[in-house]
């Protein structure tokens, strides 16, 4: 059975639901504190869950990104182990430079949302599309172009970069795994399909090798149908977000 460490920084608050989603697909999840790095290299993968690490002081994710535990996670990612950052975990991974990871520097940011109606924190259900034509550790169980219903809950979720050539690289390398879309899967660059003004509707990016993912939406909050609006009658059956965790399990087999 694959073993996943769910990294708990001070201020993280989604560790339990993330661990439950991991265990729902038959992997073992341990919640590991950021300052307990003994045996951290014994895990097959690492998930950085959502929350408010260090209270988002300075800006979301940046202080956790400077923590020594991130050096270990970076080394393990380079060995090919799976690393996924969700929401605040996504912000941490991007601020650490692991994603997009094409140069040894921070190439992107999760900037404050741009939303015509709501300033700051925005929480809703949105649609994302599996945009990658390549298979990676996170879409093995997803069909190409599959649209998923998942929630977002963030104030700083707008992928941004000042490097105008970077997006072309990411598209060419098939690193834009998830993009915000409308009900029909159309990548409409307008609210509400693009809920935060993210650059070309980016919702999740993988590294070049496809073993690290940074995504702003919360798949662990859509792991059971009872969590999905209007689908409560299907109760305990698998929700759309679970396919990402199933993909990780298949990748690690």
């Amino acid at each position: 059975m694959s073993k996943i460490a769910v990294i708990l920084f001070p201020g993280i608050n989604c560790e339990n639901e993330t661990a439950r989603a991991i265990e729902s697909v038959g992997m073992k999840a341990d919640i590991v504190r950021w300052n307990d790095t003994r045996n951290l290299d014994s895990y097959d993968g690492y998930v950085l869950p959502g929350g408010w690490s260090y209270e988002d002081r300075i800006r979301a994710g940046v202080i956790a990104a400077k923590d020594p535990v991130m050096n270990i996670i970076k080394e393990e990612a380079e060995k090919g182990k799976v690393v996924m950052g969700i929401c605040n975990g996504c912000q941490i991974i991007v601020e650490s430079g692991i994603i997009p990871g094409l140069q040894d520097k921070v190439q992107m940011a999760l900037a404050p949302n741009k939303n015509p109606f709501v300033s700051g924190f925005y929480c809703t259900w949105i649609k994302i599309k599996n945009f990658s034509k390549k298979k990676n550790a996170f879409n093995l169980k997803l069909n190409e172009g599959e649209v998923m219903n998942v929630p977002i809950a963030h104030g700083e979720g707008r992928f941004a970069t000042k490097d105008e050539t970077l997006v072309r690289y990411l598209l060419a390398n098939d690193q834009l795994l998830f993009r915000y879309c409308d009900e029909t899967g159309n990548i409409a660059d307008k609210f509400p399909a693009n809920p935060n003004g993210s650059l070309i509707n980016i919702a999740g990016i993988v590294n070049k090798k496809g073993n690290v993912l940074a995504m702003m939406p919360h798949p662990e909050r859509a792991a059971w149908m009872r969590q999905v609006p209007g689908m409560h009658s299907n109760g305990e059956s698998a929700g759309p977000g679970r396919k990402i965790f199933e993909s990780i399990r298949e990748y690690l087999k």
Partner: protein
Amino acid sequence: MSAVELFVGLKIPDTTAITTFHTIEKMGYKIGKVKREMYYKFEIDGDAEKFSKKIGKVDVLVNANKNKFSHVLEKDADAVYVLVSDTDDKCEGLMHVLKERLELKEITSMEKGVLWALYIDAADKEKIAKEIASKLLHNENYQEIKIV
């Protein structure tokens, strides 16, 4: 047209500045102290003195229970002041609140940012401050810095 600046700090302990200080130390820099203030600059069409008196009482910006404010930056000689602001932030939401709800109609435009004071005891303190800013205090992909 005239401009009014507003520097808003905390009179209670600033936990963000404390965490920032410890993070900078962990990154290997020798630093004496970190202070932080919110910075606002208002372009106004009216009397600057009257506006200055009003804006310091706006509790959206200055909560008298925890904040202190001034209209002039009182610099310490041993600190480097780094202003971090978002490149595409036109403060539309805040300006709407100030103009429409609080009736400060004289505002024509505004800027905001975070002003960091980094106390560095070194000859090349400005260079070190810029390095710390680029690694920690700002993300160049959506923010810019100015040494004040």
